[in-house]
């Protein structure tokens, strides 16, 4: 074990944290003692927790944010290598069950300061406005307790903070401001989506994406190396790690890396008093006036359930019985084919073009919900697992097919799964290395999901056919993203937290991550999670000013 191995020895301590923009660099960090009752402890530093840590610190609150993962400096720690970079994933054991067990760990779970945004595909999309009132306006799922006009303002804030590169005019939905940076040039995979959409008579656009198309501060623009989903080693990717968190540190937040929170303590009066966390081989306790859980849709319910105590035997914030329920993935099925020309989709970010046509068009559907589709650029290990697992290739046929990868073209959907209480996170009997019960995750596709897949796969296949792709095939089983399990709402009986992310049962316990989503829509969730975090921070500031915290 090396003394500077960030997976073994915490880096953020002793009044300093890593400077993510300089190899070996440091920036000053405010430190709090464990006996100091800080204003906010935040569990998790991803899209929800990291964003919130920044906003609350900038509002003058004292903040300590915990993350179970390491604090990377991408320039020195990240290799161009899928295998090695699996160190960015949450690979602790989780049991996966149900009729269609989800493959967890890679594309849907991160274990790093900065959370999954360190390895996300950077696709930065807004919800369709009607989704915030899906039950009332569209007849399915549940309504959000938040209004789309309010969210539009927060989306803009996040797009500015992440310096999103995007098109001049976005073809769908209400007007939105110009994206801060110009769109990226299109790689061949992206052009093939565009040509297919043109042939089928629907709109497409350059994907709004969180990687720089021009320099910003110490980060230069994207070099199109194509390893985005295994971590960006040049800092062009605008992740929570290199956007919100440097701001958070400047504003006085403390971040504790390699710190696994195992239990939230609640006093006799039914208020959270702080968190028990494991760091450097021992358990510690940090006092806090407020606790925010931001561990994403599996670790958040796991922590709430693992914190069960005398007053709350079914877990914290769980009087509705909904903690862990309504887990929603998104459909990630794909159509693939071969082109005569060389596509070499390993170059540039994988999803440079998109069509949200079927997010905004409901006519002609025999199912609820929407889906988008994007161009693809799978790296070798990802691709070989799809060819082997989904197409059943192995032996020389697999090796030969892999040798044709440079001609491969694909379109992949991000499709809306409806909330269903049978899809859920519970605790298994098995425990992890900290002695904490691990999560059991159950998921099954619904008839609605299957109808959506069928339509999407057929449509994407038509698009590939229209550009001359041959030997086309459909990948029927893949999912991405995790949401739900601590849904927000207006009614304590049917939700876990209110519109502000505040739990109904424990007034100083909050949730701020994708768990709060009542519905998921057909877009990647990271922009919405960050927008919710910005809104939660504003609400906390307003409540604090009124003495209502």
């Amino acid at each position, binding site marked *: 074990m090396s003394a500077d191995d960030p997976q073994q020895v915490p880096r953020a301590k002793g009044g300093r944290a890593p400077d993510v923009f300089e190899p070996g660099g440091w920036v000053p960090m405010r430190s709090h003692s464990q006996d100091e009752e800080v204003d906010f402890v935040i569990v998790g530093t991803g899209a929800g927790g990291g964003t919130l840590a920044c906003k609350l610190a900038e509002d003058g609150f004292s903040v300590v944010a915990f993350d179970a993962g390491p604090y990377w400096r991408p320039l020195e720690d990240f290799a161009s*290598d899928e295998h090695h970079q699996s160190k960015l994933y949450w690979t602790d054991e989780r049991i996966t069950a149900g009729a269609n067990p989800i493959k967890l760990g890679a594309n849907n779970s991160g274990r790093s300061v900065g959370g999954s945004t360190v390895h996300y595909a950077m696709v930065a999309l807004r919800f369709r406005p009607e989704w915030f009132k899906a039950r009332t306006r569209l007849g399915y799922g549940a309504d959000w307790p938040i209004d789309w006009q309010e969210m539009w303002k927060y989306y803009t804030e996040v797009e500015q903070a992440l310096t999103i590169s995007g098109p001049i005019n976005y073809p769908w939905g209400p007007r939105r401001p110009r994206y801060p940076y110009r769109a990226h040039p299109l790689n061949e995979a992206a052009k093939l989506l565009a040509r297919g959409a043109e042939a089928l008579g629907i709109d497409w656009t350059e994907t709004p994406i969180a990687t720089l198309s021009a320099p910003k501060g110490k980060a230069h623009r994207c070099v199109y190396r194509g390893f985005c989903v295994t971590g960006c080693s040049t800092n062009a990717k605008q992740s929570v790690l290199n956007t919100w968190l440097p701001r958070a540190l400047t504003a006085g937040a403390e971040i504790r890396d390699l710190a696994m929170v195992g239990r939230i303590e609640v006093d006799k009066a039914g208020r959270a008093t702080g968190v028990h966390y494991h760091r450097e081989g021992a358990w510690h306790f940090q006092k806090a006036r407020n606790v925010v859980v931001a561990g994403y849709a599996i670790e958040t319910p796991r922590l709430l359930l693992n914190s069960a105590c005398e007053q709350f035997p079914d877990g914290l914030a769980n009087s509705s019985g909904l903690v862990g329920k309504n887990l929603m993935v998104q459909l990630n099925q794909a159509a693939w084919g071969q082109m005569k020309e060389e596509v070499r989709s390993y170059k540039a970010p994988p999803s440079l073009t998109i069509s949200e046509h079927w997010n905004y068009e409901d006519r002609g559907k025999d199912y609820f919900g929407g889906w988008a589709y994007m161009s693809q650029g799978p790296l070798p290990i990802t691709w070989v697992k799809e060819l082997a697992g989904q197409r059943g290739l192995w032996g020389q046929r697999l090796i030969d097919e892999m040798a044709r990868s440079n001609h491969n073209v694909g379109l992949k959907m991000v499709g809306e799964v409806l909330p269903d209480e049978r899809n859920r996170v519970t605790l298994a009997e098995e425990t992890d290395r900290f002695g904490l019960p691990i999560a059991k995750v159950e998921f099954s596709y619904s008839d609605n999901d299957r109808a959506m897949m069928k339509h999407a796969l057929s449509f994407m296949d038509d698009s590939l056919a229209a550009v001359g792709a041959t030997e086309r095939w459909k990948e029927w089983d893949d999912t991405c993203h995790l949401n739900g399990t601590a849904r927000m709402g207006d009614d304590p009986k049917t939700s876990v937290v209110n519109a502000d992310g505040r739990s109904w049962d424990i007034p100083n316990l909050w949730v701020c991550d994708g768990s709060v989503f009542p519905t998921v829509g057909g877009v990647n969730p990271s922009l919405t999670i960050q927008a919710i975090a910005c809104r939660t921070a504003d609400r906390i500031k307003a409540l604090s000013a009124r003495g209502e915290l």
Partner: protein
Amino acid sequence: MANRFPGYDVLAKRDTLSWNDKTREVIAERLAMSERSDLLSDRQRATLRTAIDRIVPQPEGRAPVNALALLLAKIADDGSDGHRHHQLPGLRACYERGLDAIEEEAKARHGTSFHLLDGSQADLLLSAIERGDVCSNAWGDLPPAIFWGWRLLPDIVSSYYAHPSAWSAMGFGGPASPRGYVRIEGDRRDPWEAVEADDGTLIPAARQNKHVG
């Protein structure tokens, strides 16, 4: 299939701007990995080696891929990928049971060890496991198709395609940091990318690929 990228070697770029220090470090470690002999029984390792040889044959005319070494290291760690199918035991136990079951299946069908079967016999046996169509009692409550689809197959193909020889054989650009790429349009390549054998250029691919770097 004939070598589509003659003369192309991702490793030729090791000392260029396409490889950063961290990449050089982790790939050097991987290339130097040897097969652990202190893990699993000799018979289990022989079974796994044969399964790997059938599922991912070695690339023609290139340095061999040490997929077994990488997979044995994974089994030694006995960690997780972040999920475990509810019908499977933990990683190492799963391999011990699954490899024993493959061996027993070979004995039940052919009266001999799996690693002694000829190629087509071994392939037929693996196909049967893939379909869940087994006859040995040794499987017990280990579902063969789930062992195949959730453990054996993804682990083996992932280990193989973690090796530079496998990348070279498929014409993948390989590591690409910090230089990345400039020409991202169709039918265009940067001078540090592979040339495909039958792409119709006047200069033979094998000659061009010698200068990729």
